[in-house]
């Protein structure tokens, strides 16, 4: 990335460099997603002090610790629950949840749909790499059918969750998906999501090269990331792409962006009216 295209963004302003080297495997897409997130934070001029990152358990859950902000690494599947308490009581903070396909859609699925319904100012960035990487490569709710994992040794036979459809069905006021291949597009999507008044859900197609890629012979990191290309078009910067992505016919872009009363504001108005008698 040239200096020109990233403007004044210097990722080192947002990292706890004393935490490096990081723990991610070579080729993992999560670092790209984190870069895009911090780039969006920079463009929105959010100070490190006012940024709160809440993450769950898994590879996705660990990357928040590298951010020089208020970071909370909580229990498996519960970052949206913790974030609800934090965002409701501290509307001055920008609360971003970093979660994964297992954390968000399996153990934390109930919290996702209710966060969508409640519409509190939280941005949920779900990194979808189709696998439980931290525990060694078990099948997740987004593991593509017939793919091999340590708990689907003959190929996964379970149907797959479409996370964005789920969020839309639950009433989320902002829903989008992007791939790590196009970091600027991902940054733009995250920027719109964080700037959105209400709950925003962003699914990031990330890659688990070391565990999932090797198990399924999907190639090394460059091959896996470039395979995302099939779903990308130049006009995908914020637009829906009709091309199918992988076997799930996934699209990228912004699917929903509507004005709906933000719950924190609604609650504070409720307090005012109660106090006014």
């Amino acid at each position: 990335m040239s200096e020109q295209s990233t403007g004044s963004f210097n990722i080192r302003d947002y990292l706890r460099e004393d935490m490096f080297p990081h723990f991610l495997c070579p080729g993992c897409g999560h670092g790209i997603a984190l870069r895009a997130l911090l780039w969006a934070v920079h463009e929105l001029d959010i100070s490190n002090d006012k940024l709160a990152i809440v993450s769950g358990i898994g590879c996705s859950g660990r990357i928040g610790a590298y951010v020089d902000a208020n970071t909370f690494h909580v229990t498996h599947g519960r970052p949206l629950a913790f974030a609800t308490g934090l965002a409701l009581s501290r509307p001055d903070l920008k609360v971003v949840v970093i979660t994964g396909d297992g954390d968000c859609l399996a153990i934390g699925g109930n919290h996702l749909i209710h966060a969508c319904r409640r519409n509190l100012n939280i941005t949920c960035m779900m990194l979808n790499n189709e696998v439980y990487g931290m525990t060694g490569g078990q099948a997740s709710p987004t593991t593509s059918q017939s793919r091999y994992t340590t708990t689907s040794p003959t190929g996964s036979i379970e149907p797959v969750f479409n996370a964005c459809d789920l969020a839309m069905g639950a009433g989320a006021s902002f829903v989008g998906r992007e791939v790590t291949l196009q970091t600027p597009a991902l940054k733009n999507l995250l920027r719109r999501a964080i700037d959105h008044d209400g709950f925003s859900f962003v699914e990031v197609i990330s890659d688990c090269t070391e565990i999932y890629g090797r198990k399924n012979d999907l190639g090394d990191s460059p091959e896996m990331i470039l395979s995302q290309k099939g779903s990308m078009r130049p006009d995908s910067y914020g637009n829906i792409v009709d091309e199918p992505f992988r076997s799930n016919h996934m699209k990228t872009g912004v699917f929903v962006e509507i004005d709906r009363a933000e719950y924190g504001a609604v609650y504070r108005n409720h307090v005012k009216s109660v106090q006014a008698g």
Partner: protein
Amino acid sequence: MKAVGHLQNLQGNHACAMGAIAAGCRFFAGYPITPSSEIAEKMSLELPKVGGIFVQMEDEIASMGAILGASMGGSKVMTATSGPGFSLKQENIGYAAGAEIPCVVVNVMRGGPSTGLPTRPSQGDIMQSRWGTHGDHAVIVLTPSSVKEIYEEMIRAFWLTETLRVPVLVIYDEVIGHLVETVELPAPGSIKASMRKWASGPSAEFQPYEETEDMVPAMARPGDGYRVHTTGLTTSESGFPTQDPIQVEAMVARRLGKLKHHADDIESYEAIDCEDARIILVAIGISARAAGRAQKQAREKGLKVGLFRPITLWPFPEAAFHASSEKAKHIVVPEMNAGQIILEIDRLITGKQQTIGINRIDGEVIDPAAILCKIEELA
């Protein structure tokens, strides 16, 4: 004569909510469950009046998560539940114990296990309240036995959790929760405000889990410039995960050591006529009320009987129990379970003493007559 205006009829669960608000609780997240729902209902009505936040979450786990999120944001927080919900909250109670996040969790005990007896009283969660979450951890458990005491113990619960950064669990049986008594509440403003120690000084030098003399590290409030990391992983003093055996041991030992270091502030009990007692009754909640009556009747009959009532159940007021039971031969433990408090008493008694349990596991309360009958048998 005191002003009658201060007197009011109050239900135990309502006193719980009012005591919490008086203590400064401004965030409640909960989920409906019998027999604790009146606490959430009262909170939904009262918290907005004082600018506080009430939120009904999607489940018990989310309620526990939400209060911890709000506590990490700087609010004084609580949730309330019963049996099955208490089980569901345990993992996040462990998070609060590990990351030292102040919070108060109320458990109005009903019959278990599982759905059990939703509307019937029990005292079956004695051991769960101490060891419900996995791993070595510190918790404080308070167990009031009257409506007024619920109010007072809620204030103490917030004081303890805020000053020690240990989760405080307040447990009482359904009878105490639904009991209506005439009480005189302390005047507003007379309650000692409590708040955790906030980080101060240069942020570069701040260690979120620093070893201090009082063993309670200061907490960093998001937005104040400290930008710390909070995690359920075991950390070093820096707040970042470690597996270094020396640092791990120091961290775990400090968290556990807080209870002993602050035992005088934590432990609370009532000892009635124990000095010369040959028989000591040990009971909590509604069983302590029954034991109290039996003890009084026994004294009227000239029998040397005392009552030892732990108000702090965990850590058990060990020294006070020893002092109170010095002359006793028999320790009678009436409890509405198959025998849980008695296990702790068995651990504490001397070789010359003997424990006798009076147990009910049928969803009914213990009759004072049954206790008196046992006293007369032993005397």
